[in-house]
């Protein structure tokens, strides 16, 4: 469970090339980002990490590293 793995899954979920993302990418500023991507990220966190990301979590995060911090902390809490 590393941020590199997460970036790959995150990129796949929102249908962008993983090479275009870094931990510091402000993902909601990507030209292709829209509210449907929010659902795709929630679905990815559920399917790949078994955790529930909320709409509020997405609102509260800015960068890919922010959302990874939320997912990884929920994973840790679930253990």
């Amino acid at each position, binding site marked *: 469970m590393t941020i590199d793995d997460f970036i790959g899954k995150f990129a796949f979920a929102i249908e962008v090339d993983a090479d275009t993302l870094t931990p510091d990418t402000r993902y909601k500023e990507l030209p292709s980002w*829209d*509210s*449907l991507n*929010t*659902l*795709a990220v*929630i*679905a990815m966190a*559920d*399917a790949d990490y078994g955790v*529930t*990301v*909320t*709409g*509020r979590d*997405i609102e509260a995060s800015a960068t890919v590293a922010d959302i990874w911090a939320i997912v990884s902390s929920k994973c840790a809490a679930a253990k």
Partner: protein
Amino acid sequence: MNAVTGVALRAVTAATPTRVARTADYAYLEPDERQRFQKATGIAERRIVAAGQCASDLCLAAAKAALAHLGWDPASVGALILITQTGDQPVPATSIVLQDKLGLPSACMAFDINLGCSSYPYGLAVAGSVMRTLGIARGLLLIGDVSSRLCAEHDKSAWPLFGDAGSATALELDESAPPIHLDLCSDGAGKEAIIIPGGGLASRLPPVDGHIADAIGSDGVPRRADNLVLRGADIFSFAISRVPGSIQRAIASSGRAAQDFDFLLLHQANRMINDTIARKLGFASDRVPTSIEHYGNTSSASIPVTLCANAALFDVPRWVVASGFGVGLSWGSATFQLPAAAVLPCIDTDDVH
């Protein structure tokens, strides 16, 4: 035992208006956004009422079709329960108006229930329990909404999702009917996820007269106070995290295994939600019929609409587990048997009664 016993489902009918609204034609999304929306939600088109048609009109058509199919004398119906969030008027309850329009006897109890996407399991629980306890031989459970009349047309977070529909489920006391097992849940802490904030007494807003200035929501979308606000991401995470457990509890309470059910019927909110729930429960897609492609999210009526849109699957007796979830938050699941040929194909109607 979380079950209603001795009550059989005899017929399920659904009615929709004829007017089709296609995602591909929705003016407030760009063409590429329309494609992405359709791919993510599964919604290609929906049925939308013309001005003046109400949920009661759609439910009336569905109820008449159920009575005709069964050859039931209206005088034999002792309970009419309507579940809607789009009644004809605030007072009196629309179910009572429908009692008269359907020619049901005055010795028929009639009342409304205010629930949305969770209506089907709740309706089976309430109607079945009342009939069983009071010895009412026959009842009609009517469920429907005209959500298009609640949403601002430019609100792309709500308008392109919803379709209008009404339904009827005819229930009858029958000692030989298998039990209907239920799991029913609520969480009012999530009330903001889907809400019409204005028009009620708590809002302290002036009566809705169509002249209230548009207000800009926190999402930047201007809406009237009596428009519906839907926070899709909150609903999405609620549904995929809390609904599978409800379905599992209903299945467990039935004493049957998941593989003993022919079909899983889910509220039709979003293709991604339902794919996720079905995957968690181990139901392959051929055991999860859908209607969202052609009818959108038909709110309270989505489970009967999905049954009727796939009526050919129900020519033989089928075991079904169904789950509705959404506005409230309210969710629930029910397991039941549908006898052969009890599900009729969807009816088209623009009649206003």
